[in-house]
């Protein structure tokens, strides 16, 4: 068995029994990266020297028979919007091309405490704005199932790396679907936790009321292990939730009897690929057969979620990105005064999609349009959240598609922003309501994976994991590995 094909929990067993060393595992991952990265383009930077040094430290502890945390010595990747002290963190943008954070994100600190091995920083749409990773300023990542198609976005590098065996686990961030969409397109597992469950300290901000960091892994068990490592209150993020963190591995029980699952019919939007629809309905039938109680629920404001999202997210982004003026950090272009310096810096430093969203956000916030666009969207957000509150009076989890289609071809939607945005139609309501949701494979259309979405109540990650684990263990999709498009 080649080591890069193993999950974190499988590798942990082999490390504990000393069947393999952490250095061997790390080297196996880098050998895999050398073999496929040309085709996948998952990484913006690799951190091999630090990774091997960390693996050696873990090996010393293993040799001394020290008991180590679950992810010790397990190689993973971080999306390049998560700060790592001393390691370039670009956010996929020219404007931060040379930014080396002087501090760690809280999740980075937590993973360091776990003694994980960081293999590199994963590619992403610039400032996490996109659904295909084509908006990266550095490279276009490719889907390991078919390298002519996109891996999804914005955490496309993270999902592609995990699917191609270039990282055992990865972190992404999800503002409107940016963990779940690439996980679905790449046939892996991705969880967006409840808003506030994981600290955002050290995550480069896109839309602060929606952003949330979460795991991308090859199976649900690894997802629970990474959640155990990163969840929890952080005094440095005033929006993090001060609630006890359960042991998420306790939810890994393949038994869904008595759990109430709801089907929000509004998620089956016009234009949905019939094969995707069929696969999601088949998954629901299977969960019913396994003992779940089923109910169709109505979430009438679902159709307004995407429009709401694009007002809320761009408004917050236009404010968050106002800091990039070439003064404190990041790129600076010359200008005769402060305004022209800022204008030159931002015009040259930001790509087209980022500029478009800044413009849209500033328009929505500008005098005369604020009430019509931004305030209106915030009110509709309330109604969307109420749809969730009401649905969760009757059910424990909601089951829905992740996206209307499987991964699309590179270049297919890049000149039509609205068509690209429509890929997020099933994922954005979850961010607006702040609830947790997982994506996991539920079938294939041809050779391309289809994603199933399981949505939980606020802080209902354990229910989500339990339902996902039950589905996973009663199928074998998670055992299939991406072929890398003819590799």
């Amino acid at each position, binding site marked *: 068995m080649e080591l890069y094909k193993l999950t974190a929990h499988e590798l942990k067993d082999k490390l504990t029994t000393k069947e393999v060393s952490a250095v061997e595992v790390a080297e196996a991952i880098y050998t895999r990266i050398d073999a496929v990265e040309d085709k996948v383009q998952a990484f913006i930077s690799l951190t091999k020297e630090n990774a091997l040094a960390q693996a050696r430290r873990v090996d010393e502890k293993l040799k001394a028979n020290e008991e180590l945390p679950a992810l010790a010595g397990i190689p993973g990747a971080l999306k390049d919007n998560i700060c790592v002290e001393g390691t370039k963190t670009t956010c996929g943008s020219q404007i931060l091309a*040379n930014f*080396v954070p*002087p*501090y760690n994100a809280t999740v980075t600190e937590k993973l360091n405490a776990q003694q994980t091995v960081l293999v590199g920083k994963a590619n992403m749409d610039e400032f996490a704005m996109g659904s295909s990773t084509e908006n990266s300023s550095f490279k276009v990542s490719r889907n390991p199932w078919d390298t002519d198609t996109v891996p999804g976005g914005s955490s496309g590098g993270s999902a592609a790396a995990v699917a191609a065996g270039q990282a055992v686990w990865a972190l992404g961030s999800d503002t409107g679907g940016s963990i779940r969409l690439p996980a679905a397109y790449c046939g892996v597992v991705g969880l967006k936790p409840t*808003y*506030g469950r994981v600290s955002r300290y050290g995550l480069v901000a896109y839309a602060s*009321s929606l952003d949330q960091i979460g795991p991308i892994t090859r199976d649900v068990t690894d997802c629970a292990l990474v959640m155990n490592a990163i969840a929890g209150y952080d*005094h440095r993020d*005033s*929006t993090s939730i001060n609630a006890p963190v359960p042991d998420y591995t306790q939810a890994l029980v393949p038994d869904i009897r008595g759990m109430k699952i709801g089907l929000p019919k509004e998620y089956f939007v016009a234009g949905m690929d019939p094969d995707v629809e069929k696969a999601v309905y088949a998954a629901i039938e299977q969960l019913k057969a396994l003992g779940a109680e089923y109910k169709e629920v109505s979430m009438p*404001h679902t*159709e*307004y979620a*995407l*429009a*709401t999202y*694009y*007002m809320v997210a761009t408004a917050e982004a*236009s404010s968050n990105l106002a800091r990039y003026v070439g*003064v*404190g*950090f*990041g*790129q*600076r272009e010359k*200008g005769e*005064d*402060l*305004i022209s*310096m800022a*204008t*030159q810096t*931002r*015009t040259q430093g*930001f790509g087209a999609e980022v*500029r*478009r969203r*800044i*413009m*849209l956000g*500033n*328009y929505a916030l*500008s005098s005369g349009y604020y009430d019509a*666009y931004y*305030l*209106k*969207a*915030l*009110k*509709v*957000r*309330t*109604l969307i*959240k109420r749809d969730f509150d009401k649905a969760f009076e009757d059910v424990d989890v909601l089951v829905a598609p992740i996206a209307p289609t499987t991964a699309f071809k590179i270049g297919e939607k890049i000149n039509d*922003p*609205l068509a690209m*945005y429509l890929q997020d139609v099933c994922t954005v309501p979850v961010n*607006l*309501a*702040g609830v947790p949701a997982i994506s996991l494979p539920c079938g294939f259309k041809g050779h391309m994976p289809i994603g199933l979405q399981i949505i939980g109540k606020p802080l209902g990650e354990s229910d989500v994991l339990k339902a996902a684990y039950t589905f996973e263990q009663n199928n074998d999709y998670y055992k299939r590995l991406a072929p890398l498009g003819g590799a």
Partner: protein
Amino acid sequence: MKITRKDVETVAFLSRLAMDEAEMDKFTGQLNAILEYVDMLNKVDTEGVEPTDHILNLKNVMRADEAKPSLARELALKNAPEQEDGYFKVPKILEG
């Protein structure tokens, strides 16, 4: 037209973004398409509905007023494009 070319020019200035004629045309078209789509929100009756700007409904989060360690000056300045005497350096902003 939801947004005119003149609006786009104004918003570009507010956003501190410069663009040439061709890009101005392209952005005007794309922003119009997006805003036409967003217009569907006007179909929703939001009479008496409170806005949700944040899902946790937090008010100000305070901590005790105690000095805590913070980033050292040289580290804070490390990524500055230009610095002088321990300060961020910018073009002159005052006359005389």
